[in-house]
Every structure is written in C-alpha cells, then in structure tokens.
C-alpha cells in the first residue's frame, strides 16, 4: 500500500510550504484590509496534516454554518482554494464591503453574494500572486463559486478529491480577524494529488 505523500514530507519541505503560506496569506490579508478599510490581524499560518474526516473540525465541526467561496486553480499545479467564514462573519464582512451599518445583513441578496465572491476572488488572486512569484509558475484562478451551508458539506467538495489518493489532507490554514473581532475567516489552499510534488520541486526542496 502506498503511503500518503503528505505523511512523508521532510521538515525542510514543511518549512518551505509554511513560508509560502505565510507570504501568500499576508498578501491576501493586505488586500482584504484595503477592501474593507480596516486593520486585519492574521495568524501565523498553520500547516496541518489531518485525517480527512477531521478537517471540518478546524472550522467548528461539520454542522457549523459557514459561507464558502471556492475557486479552482489552473496551471502546472492544479489546486483548490476555499475561503470559509462563519455565517455571522460573512454578514459582517458584507456590511463592511457594502458600507452598511454592522448588523444590517441577515440574509444575503444577489448583490451581497457577488460581493462575497469578489472578495474571495481578490484574496485568492493575491495569494496566488505570491505562490506564482516563488514557484515561477503561472497559476490562474477560476471564477469563484459561493455556497452558504454546513461546513462538512462545503468541505466535502475538496476532501473527496483528496480521498481518491489518500486519507490525509495537507491544509495550509490562516485565520483572519478584524480588530473588533467581528470578521473571522479561514483560508484553505489544498493542492490536488500530485500538485504538491510540483510545488516542492519548483521551490527546490523535492526529495
């Protein structure tokens, strides 16, 4: 039986990935801060190797209500990007982006959905810029898609892809929060099976 590729990463490879995550997420946080005109605190990205079934626990369990913006990444290292926000954070973020008073939004209208997707788009784009810069690869995001539902259901979209080749996920995860703590979000980059090796070799840390 083949071993999961993510379980055999060396400390140096993990460091390289963490650094990419750090710079990419830093770019994304700066972009978010400009959109909503507020200071954004960002956690040091965590690099977790988790059994697939435990990934939803990262955002509070499979039945937690979240908004998810999903994008496919095209290029030499196909990946998925998922930006997850607890429902209240999604509402607060839309209020800020649309210049409304905090607490106004209780359901998302079509305009709010567009705004959330556009924010996801900008975050993904700025993250990918950093990744492209370091790997010298052209990585392009698809149009964003939005869903508001249970975290387990939304995450299943990417976990299923990983499930074909392994039982573990490498999750580069960053938490964003505004000073008032009214918006918190999780940003996931999940390389497709095989893409991780491509990324590692362009970084010069392949085995």
């Amino acid at each position, binding site marked *: *039986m*083949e071993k*999961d590729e993510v379980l055999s990463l060396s400390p140096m490879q993990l460091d390289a990935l963490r650094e990419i995550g750090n710079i990419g997420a830093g770019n994304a946080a700066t972009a978010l801060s400009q959109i909503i005109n507020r200071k954004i605190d960002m956690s040091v990205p965590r690099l977790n190797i988790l059994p*697939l*079934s435990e990934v*939803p626990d990262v955002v509070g*369990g*499979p*039945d937690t*209500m979240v908004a*998810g913006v*999903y994008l*496919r990444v095209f290029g030499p290292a196909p990946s998925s990007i998922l930006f997850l926000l607890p429902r209240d954070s999604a509402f607060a973020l839309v209020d800020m982006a649309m210049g409304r008073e905090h607490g106004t939004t209780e359901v998302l209208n079509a305009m709010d959905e567009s705004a959330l997707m556009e924010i996801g788009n900008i975050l993904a784009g700025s993250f990918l810029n950093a990744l492209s810069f370091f790997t010298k690869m052209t990585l392009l995001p*698809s*149009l964003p*898609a*939005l*869903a*508001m*539902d*249970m*975290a*387990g*259901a*939304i*995450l*299943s*979209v990417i*976990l*299923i*892809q990983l*499930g*074909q*080749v*392994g*039982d573990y996920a490498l999750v580069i995860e960053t938490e964003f929060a505004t000073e008032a703590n009214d918006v918190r979000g999780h940003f996931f980059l999940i390389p497709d*099976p095989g893409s991780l090796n491509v990324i590692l070799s362009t970084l010069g840390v392949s085995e």
Partner: protein
Amino acid sequence: MPELIKVGMADLKVGRNPDSLISYGLGSCVGIALYDSLTKVGGLAHIMLPDSTQARATDNKAKFADTALPVLLEQVLQLGGVKSRMTAKIAGGSQMFNFAQATDVMRIGDRNAEAVREVLKSLSIRLVAEDVGGNYGRTVELLLDTGVFVIKTVNKGDNRL
C-alpha cells in the same frame, strides 16, 4: 438512555433500538441507512467516493460505495439483522458549487448516488426511499426504534423518509 452514535466522513457504524445513528454535514457524500424493522437493528455508512477500483488509497473500506456496503451489511447481520427484511434509504449526493465548466469532479454527488443504487441492487437490498441531489448540505439520522431516516437541511426544511 438512547445513545446517539456519530458516524464521521468515510465511516460506518451499526446499532440497535433505541439508539440512533447520525452523520453531520453531508455534501456530495452519500449516507446509506440499512434497517431491519423486525429486529430493529440497522447501520449507517457515510461514503465519499463511488468506486474503490478507481482510487489509490483503499485501506478505508467505508470510504467507497462498493466496499462500504458489504461491510455495513455484514455488521448489521451480525447484530441480528436478516437480509431478506433489510431495506435501504439513502440521502446526500449534492453538488455544492455550481460551475459553468462542470467537470466530472464537480458531478461526484450524482456519481456517488448512482454507484450506491447499483451496489444495493447487486446485493439484492431493496432501496425504499431516497433524498438525493440539489445543491445543499444534509445532516442525516437513522432512528433505530422506527427505521425513520431523518434528513435535516439549513434552508430546505426537514424530511422524514
């Protein structure tokens, strides 16, 4: 006290009256409930993928429709279920994100549901009810006292099969 037995993603569990089996937040995955109404024993599997022969990592039998169902059936039989009385109900198999360029990867929910139907047929287990498709998540619970399969959603209300 009736126990609430949790079934994770790519997992399967069995139980008996008065317990119930629950799995949270199914998207494209499919929840399969088997039940014997006389002995009131049953099982719930939460599969992620249709076919283990198309995958590289197949250690976990509960992950695939074709390998999970025989294991689930075997375990329900061990608890005292009888195959001729066994009925199946399924839920899940949605497509969470709508893409213009919908590839096979995105249609995995449909393929999961189809694979489950076929495996049930090949095992000669009667599929008596299903709640599949759409673009929303489901939490499913099999009540082992009655065999009712409860499907909870965020915006589409609840359904009892």
